């Protein structure tokens, strides 16, 4: 049986994905597990692996096309198999997304705020009756209700039913639907130019006409973002606007002596032989400070403060397209060399545009370091839904008053930006104080 390659749902709220680049051409032989296409979502670009071995056929999504989640973008035919034509209908976002193997299974321990499956009691009961793992049911709202579970159950049945036609009703105007039926066209195979991709009469007419007109129509379909702005930049713009306009910010600034930090870095590099950076040290120290002050590792959501179960520290990384924040999960449990290795891995993959959804999920606190650009101090915008972000300036020798005398010390200015809905000044200050003490005396980590 042909295996459909569908636009996967890589994120909870994802509605569509963009085909960036086909790594294989129609007619190419593919091996199961081999990357065949690059898909860009709102947050990341991922390689989708072949769900089966065979020959790639019926590639319906061109590079640059934005395709609704769940839609078939190509099929893989087993050797000797004959294709059903380009109109293989699209169904089952959740189930097939998992089947492509592109979605990492959810980590066992995840953030309380991000990972817990929200489902109605009735949905849970029905899921139990059908033996459905709720973690595999995705919904646009993130909340699972009865209908979602039943739809999932249906979608699981569909493939064996033969044509897989159940599931999604293609959006189309009544007239377009009637005309398509009259002309024997499969409306699910048509590209809609109406609101939300709905198929209109004009689309049916275009499909009825041979070749020439079709590509032109295809080009006009929903561009991702404005010209010149990539998805990453657009998402950054949206998220920062959300944060700036909904989270009341306040800032706590503290200059810390980094003499010990400087000597610790030297020692750590020698001991581990790894390329450890100040950022790595800060990740370690921030994780320790968060352990002492869990209130900072939290989110304001729907009128309540959600405490994160794990200490996951995000790092703001500038890439060509904008800003991404890969996460070092459970940083409090990692040794310095492990943090450095993880940091090196995610930063290099971020720059290559190869982050996976799991890399950027679950962050509870963010560090943004502009020290390497010579910035003395700056105020960052909180990375929603997190409660705080730490802006780190450069290390420089500065004159400070010491026992009534001017003295020169290497210092660094830390600015903690806080969401006042989740944190108040005192709690923020206590956390910043604990962090400052750890930076000034890293040995405190040992006790």
């Amino acid at each position: 049986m042909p295996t459909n390659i569908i636009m996967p749902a890589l994120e909870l709220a994802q509605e569509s994905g963009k085909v960036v680049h086909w790594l294989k051409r129609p007619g190419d032989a593919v091996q199961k597990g081999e990357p065949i296409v690059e898909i860009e979502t709102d947050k990341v670009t991922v390689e989708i692996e072949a769900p089966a071995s065979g020959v790639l056929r019926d590639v319906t999504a061109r590079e640059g096309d934005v395709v609704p989640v769940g839609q078939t973008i190509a099929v893989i035919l087993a050797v000797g198999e004959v294709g059903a034509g380009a109109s293989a209908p699209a169904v089952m976002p959740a189930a097939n997304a998992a089947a492509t193997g592109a979605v990492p299974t959810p980590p066992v321990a995840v953030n309380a705020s991000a990972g817990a499956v929200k489902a109605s009691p009735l949905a849970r009961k029905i899921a139990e009756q059908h033996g459905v793992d709720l973690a595999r049911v995705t919904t646009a709202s993130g909340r699972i209700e009865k209908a979602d579970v039943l739809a999932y159950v249906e979608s699981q049945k569909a493939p064996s039913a033969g044509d897989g036609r159940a599931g999604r009703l293609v959006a189309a105007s009544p007239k377009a639907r009637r005309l398509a039926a009259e002309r024997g066209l499969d409306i699910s195979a048509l590209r809609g130019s109406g609101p939300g991709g709905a198929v209109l009469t004009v689309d049916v007419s275009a499909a009825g006409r041979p070749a020439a007109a079709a590509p032109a129509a295809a080009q006009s379909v929903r561009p991702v973002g404005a010209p010149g702005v990539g998805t990453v930049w657009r998402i950054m713009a949206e998220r920062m606007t959300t944060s700036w306009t909904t989270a009341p910010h306040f800032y706590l600034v503290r200059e810390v002596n980094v003499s010990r930090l400087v000597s610790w870095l030297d020692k750590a590099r020698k001991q581990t032989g790894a390329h450890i950076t100040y950022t790595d040290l800060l990740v370690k120290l921030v994780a320790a400070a968060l352990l002492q002050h869990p209130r900072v590792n939290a989110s304001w959501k729907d009128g309540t403060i959600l405490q994160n179960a794990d200490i996951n520290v995000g790092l703001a990384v500038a890439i060509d397209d904008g800003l991404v924040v890969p996460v070092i999960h459970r940083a409090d449990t990692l040794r310095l060399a492990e943090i450095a290795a993880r940091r090196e891995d995610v930063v290099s993959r971020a720059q290559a545009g190869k982050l996976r959804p799991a890399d950027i999920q679950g962050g509870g606190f963010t560090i943004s370091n502009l020290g390497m650009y010579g910035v003395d101090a700056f105020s960052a915008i909180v990375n929603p839904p997190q409660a705080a972000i730490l802006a780190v300036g450069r290390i420089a020798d500065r004159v400070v008053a010491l026992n009534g005398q001017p003295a020169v010390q290497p210092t660094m200015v830390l600015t903690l930006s806080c969401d006042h809905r989740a944190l108040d000044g005192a709690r923020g200050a206590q956390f910043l104080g604990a962090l400052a003490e750890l930076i000034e005396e890293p040995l405190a980590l040992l006790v």
Partner: protein
Amino acid sequence: MSERELTYGEAVKEAIAEEMRRDPRVFLIGEDVAEAGHPFKTLVGLVQEFGTQRIIDTPISEPGYAGIGVGAAMTGMRPIVDVMFGDFITLTMDQMVNQAAKAHYMSGGKIKVPIVFRTTLGATRRSAAQHSQSLHAWVSHVPGLKVALPSGPYEAKGLMKTAIRDDSPVVIFEDKMMYRVKGPVPAEDYTIPFGVAEVKRAGTDVTIVATSSMVTVALGAAKMLEEIGISAEVIDPRTTWPLDKQRLIESAKKTSRAIVVDEGYERYGTTAEIASVIAEGAFYHLDAPVKRIGAMDVPVPFSPVLEDLTVPTEKSVFEAAKTLCRKA
């Protein structure tokens, strides 16, 4: 047809005068209708011709004289009950809805109530919230009543004559902003049948169903649409009941898109009824949802600036049609 022109107000008066000459059972009753010639000056001269026995001034007492009218109709007269502002039908509802509309049915057909309630609709006269409403949807809802909405002088005369001759109770809403609008009105006797919509302008891309003064608005929008290459068909149902469903549906089937424009409040309004008639009848021919444009759902403001914002305009109809035709 004669090229003679009359104002909307003159057309109404001519219809009433001709019918009163033709049929001695016809009389008119209401406030300020005799010597004053009606506050909108639509009845000037009638009392001189027909006398105070047939053009009857009443105290401010809508429920009372509406009841007199219903009783007179039941006993063989053909009264025209004049309710100055459409807003005041709140006071005559029992007479209209529970008496006039029901008597024929409840008497097993023995009683006829050939009465005309003549009243007004329309905003932008700076008359504030209690004198600016368009409440024709209320009576259109009630079986037993017929409802006419003349959209110009020709319709004002023809529909009034049909209303007076009809053996059922009829509520006729004149747009108070149109009384000075001029148009060709034949001098000879003519009537306009109820339940027959008129295509005011033929088109192929979008159907605009408009009532009363909104027909003029729709025609203006159609002209604007023509300039950007959209061909709009404008249809005037002329009566909201009986409603010429077939003609509306056929037009929507032809164009695949429909907009309904009416000056009543949008919610639960005339636009909703007509839109659903089209959606049901033309569903498999529609390429877009049926669009409704009614008056804003607010008590009509006195402030001219605000009041003007509450009613559909050529521009708003033009924009809606443009969106519907996907010409952004």
